[in-house]
């Protein structure tokens, strides 16, 4: 489904991604771990098309179609979803209005009729249940005054609404309390499907207890330096990243 080859990207004259290779198949869950400033969020944003980051080399394809030439909204409509590490506030715009516009932009792209207010509300209610979100959140401005945990729930709610092919979740677990982590992770689990791939960026094993990855990668210094099964996360929890540092310098 997703094939990343030798991806290099820079921002502000500084090379952050230095040759990332990654292949994700439909139905798989990949975890990406790595120390702070390794380039994990950068990878997520480059996949989603943030223009600030200049891709200098390499390729990214989704189901054989190159993503790099597409605008962020076109990638989104092709099925790329990113859950933000720091979701922003959009004052004065209700969650409901925002999501309805987004859902309808996707539907239009697929040549489907737009959802009317009633149908939208029905769909939204179902999906809010998934992450145990209060319905009142629909009428609040997007992320405005939301607690850290509420923002993360809102991200997964949006993922559910947009039903992407590929979801990149950037530290969705950070900021969640113990119960919320369980709820959100089970929400994401419910969204797993044979034709949907997930990339989960995290620092902690906790999330992976609930959301068990098929493959775990370590991103370090802008490259994937180690790839293994789910047991890798446990090992990192014990040993940190020090032992991988050497390999990265080479």
């Amino acid at each position, binding site marked *: 489904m997703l094939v990343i080859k030798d991806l290099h990207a820079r921002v502000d004259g500084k090379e952050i991604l230095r040759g990332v290779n990654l292949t994700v198949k439909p139905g798989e869950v990949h975890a990406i771990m790595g120390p702070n400033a390794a380039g994990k969020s950068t990878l997520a944003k480059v996949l*989603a*098309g*943030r223009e*600030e980051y200049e891709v200098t080399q390499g390729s990214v394809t989704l189901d054989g179609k190159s993503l790099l030439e597409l*605008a*962020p*909204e076109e990638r*989104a*409509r092709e099925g790329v*979803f*990113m859950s*933000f590490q720091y*979701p*922003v*506030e*959009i*004052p*004065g*715009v209700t969650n409901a*209005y*925002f*999501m309805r*516009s*987004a859902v309808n*932009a*996707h539907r239009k*792209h697929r040549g489907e009729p737009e959802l009317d207010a009633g149908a939208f509300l029905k769909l939204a209610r179902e999906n809010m249940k998934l992450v145990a979100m209060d319905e009142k959140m629909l009428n609040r*401005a997007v992320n405005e005054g939301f607690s850290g945990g509420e923002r993360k729930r809102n991200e997964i709610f*949006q993922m559910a609404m*947009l039903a992407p092919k590929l979801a990149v979740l950037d530290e969705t677990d950070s900021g969640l309390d113990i119960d919320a982590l369980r709820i959100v992770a089970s929400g994401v689990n419910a969204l797993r499907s044979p034709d949907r791939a997930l990339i989960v960026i995290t620092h902690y094993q906790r999330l992976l207890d609930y959301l068990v990855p098929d493959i775990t990668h370590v991103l370090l210094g802008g490259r994937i330096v180690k790839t293994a099964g789910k047991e890798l996360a446990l090992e990192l929890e014990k040993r940190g990243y020090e032992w991988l540092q050497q390999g990265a310098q080479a």
Partner: protein
Amino acid sequence: MSSITPPNALAEADVQLDGDYKYGFVTNIASDVVPPGLSEDVIRHISGKKGEPEFMLAWRLKAFQRWKEMREPRWAHVTYPPIDYQGISYYAAPKQKEKLASLDEVDPELLATFEKLGIPLSEQKLLANVAVDAVFDSVSVATTFKAKLAEVGIIFCSFSDAVKNHPDLVRKYLGSVVPYSDNFFSALNSAVFSDGSFVYIPKGVRCPMELSTYFRINERNTGQFERTLIVADEGSYVSYLEGCTAPMRDENQLHAAVVELVALPGAIIKYSTVQNWYPGDKEGRGGIYNFVTKRGKCFERAKISWTQVETGSAITWKYPSVILQGDDSVGEFYSVAVTNNMQQADTGTKMLHLGKNTKSTIVSKGISAGKSSNAYRGQVLINQRATGARNHSQCDSLLIGDKCGAHTFPYIDVKNAASTVEHEASTSKIGEDQLFYLRQRGLSEEDAVSMIVNGFCKDVFRELPMEFAVEAQKLLAVSLEGSVG
């Protein structure tokens, strides 16, 4: 996105031009235009054409005398080449039958023009709850729902008709809020105004529908100088809407209107404007100079609320104000002003607290894009007598791109210590993070911008009547087209 229309495409033909400004067409209609220039003779001519009583002519001539002694104001944060006041024609009227008994007699070309603007004038087709007065160039061509309003004693007619049929009301209130000597443009308007709308709501009457005036400039080289006078008698209520458009032309046209509101004790007037005069092209050629004086006077317990959405005009110079003369009266000003490309706006309000326990609220949202300049200028005056007066002002600016400018000029003058004045201001840029967030969810860049801007303006939009709010949102999106990327 549609492309911009080269100025030479501005044919005289009645065609919808393929440009960003969808109201930029010209109606091909015979009209009666007075040759350019301003003199006593021209004023006598205008007054004579309209068959005005002597008091009107005398008032006009006094205004003209005063105007000749005045100078154009230069304090606004706008720049434009000198205006040649002798190069403007001060009267243009579509040629049609002298007296119109009903809408059926209005020139079909004119009706078609208003249809095209989305203002159907035939009463059957009208939105059930809006009565419309349509002003084409300088002349009111049709007022709908007159009969229904008359049943409850409401007068809603063109200014010319009011001068003829209700001279006592006109005489009593004309210039009572904006004297002809108030400023350069109000003096000019007082001398040459050709028409406009007049409203009188009798004591205790709640106007059963929205009243609305639609202004349209069509002729080349003409100025439009209309006058609106609304008198709400004790305990009455009226909501009034005003919309404006003009053809695309590559010269500038002057629009100097005066609006006077009188809210007698306990009356409420809600005045909403969606101003969409032609703003000029992307290089700043053409567009309307919108130099307007709007002011209301509140007697005891009365309330005047101005809501404006200003997206058009090359230059906007406009400060809808409230004189809070009576005790316990309330003034409100809700404004969205958008400037893009080379547009300039200097707009805001004046709240003059004269009475005790008077209250005012100011919410101003300025949005600047392109190379435009957008200034908020507001004055809050609390007089010695105004014990217990309260004002709250909130002025927010939103910048799109880095070539535009936003300025805030608040003047606060408090002469009574037992009063409260609060002023909050903010300036922000549309964040790349916000844009990216919305686009990541599948919204186009333009939809993302318009969503953020609409959210920014929400506090003002919710003051607008429903249909107007929808129109305002769409207008905003159109005005900001191409402002990012």
